[in-house]
């Protein structure tokens, strides 16, 4: 312990105490405690999301709402709906119906507050030539742009986060800013992400996207119903991904892409409920999962409801 000794010739500081005091003093100069900076201090000292209790989370949500209001000049609600008990979300996509129209892609952008410039899409629709070896994803076309879809000689496969039961991205994260929730959704805490992009390298599905700049989106285009772990406005330098529309699905609603799909190719439900649509699909159709051989165990099932 450093001691301040009062000697005859004045106050004597040992080196350690002196350095401590100097460091604190410098920090104080660098971050003066006015009103705006109080928020900065709070965000700097914020605990990991899973270590916070309800009161602390509420405080954080309040701080974020104040920050967003100041930034976007509109009220944005940041929710923290918890995972419903006995629920494990699963997704089904009927490849025999998908027409590749990308309606889901843009419905997702509207719902989830992605940056429009630079553009971030959580769903990529891949086009494959019929009758060829198509599991070779690198041969697929993402930028197809015909006059009309579907085209006779192609079929389409939308790819988004597969919500793996064994997610490689989570293991790659050095700060535990991403994890799997009890209902199976893999989430990112944008306040904890340091932007190293290890998770993007680890993801075999290209489902994670990085904010290279401050997200470009007009304030009036921002969806004000958000979730802390979902579609709340993001920062420059953080990774984001599909969350099965956590802000909707944890309130019982279908994800935005399910409701947008004009051909009803997208199915969603509780894998633990034997009467759910997704269970019906798994039990009655031939389903497959993308890159099953990687042992990621996705909860995203592709199937062909109509053999043709």
């Amino acid at each position: 312990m450093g001691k301040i000794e009062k000697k005859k010739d004045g106050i004597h500081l040992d080196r350690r105490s002196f350095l401590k005091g100097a460091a604190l003093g410098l920090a104080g100069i660098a971050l003066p405690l006015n009103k705006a900076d109080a928020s900065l201090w709070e965000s700097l000292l914020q605990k990991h999301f899973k270590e916070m209790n309800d009161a602390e989370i509420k405080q954080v949500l309040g701080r974020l709402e104040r920050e967003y209001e100041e930034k976007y000049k509109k009220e944005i609600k940041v929710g923290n709906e918890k995972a419903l008990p006995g629920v494990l979300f699963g997704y089904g996509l009927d490849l025999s119906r998908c027409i590749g129209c990308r309606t889901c892609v843009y419905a997702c952008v509207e719902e989830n507050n992605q940056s429009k410039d630079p553009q971030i899409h959580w769903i990529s629709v891949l086009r494959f030539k019929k009758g060829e070896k198509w599991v070779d994803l690198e041969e697929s076309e993402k930028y197809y742009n015909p006059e009309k879809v579907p085209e006779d000689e192609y079929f389409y496969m939308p790819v988004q986060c597969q919500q793996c039961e064994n997610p490689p991205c989570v293991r790659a994260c050095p700060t535990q800013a991403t994890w799997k929730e009890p209902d199976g959704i893999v989430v990112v805490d944008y306040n904890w992400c340091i932007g190293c992009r290890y998770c993007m390298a680890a993801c075999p599905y290209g489902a994670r996207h990085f904010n290279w700049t401050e997200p470009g989106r007009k304030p009036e285009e921002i969806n004000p119903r958000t979730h802390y772990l979902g579609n709340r406005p993001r920062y420059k330098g953080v990774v984001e991904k599909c969350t099965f529309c956590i802000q909707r699905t944890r309130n019982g609603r279908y994800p935005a892409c399910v409701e947008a799909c004009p051909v009803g190719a997208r199915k969603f439900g509780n894998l633990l409920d034997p009467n759910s649509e997704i269970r019906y699909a798994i039990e009655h159709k031939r389903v497959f999962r993308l890159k099953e051989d990687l042992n990621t165990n996705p909860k995203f099932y592709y199937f062909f409801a109509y053999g043709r």
Partner: protein
Amino acid sequence: MKKRMKSGCILTLVVCLAIIGLPLIAGAEERDIPKKFFVPPPPFSPGIFPCSQCHQGMPVNRHPRKLEMHQEIASNLKHMPGGWCFDCHNPDNRDKLRLANGKLVSFEESYILCGQCHGTILREWKAGLHGKRTGMWNGDKQYRLCVHCHWPHEPRFKAIKPFPPPVKPTDIK
């Protein structure tokens, strides 16, 4: 003796399985009880329904012929080419549809009519697999009638213009 015990065991097992299985089969039947599906009203062309507003009092002519009204449908019937109106529409009360067995169904329940031929699709529609659902994954769902997506006289989906492709990395300035 050992053999007899073995066969006795198998018999008991079969009986047990049957007892367990029976309620399962009964349960499966229960699911088939017709239930009301929450569907929006049928997508009529504006002003066309009720059909009786014009057809009331018209003499019923069941013979295929050139029509003064609806000829564009009759001559372009892509659904069952060679068919005729009364394969589905009811000649005596035009506000209803008519099943093959003579029963009448309302336009709100037209899926029953479609299901006469497309039984497997109807089964999947009821289960929530075929067609679009909106609403709550764990609660009230909005179903859609077959005719909301498939125009009954030409049911194949029309091709649509896709949304623009994503920006290529090479096009980012």
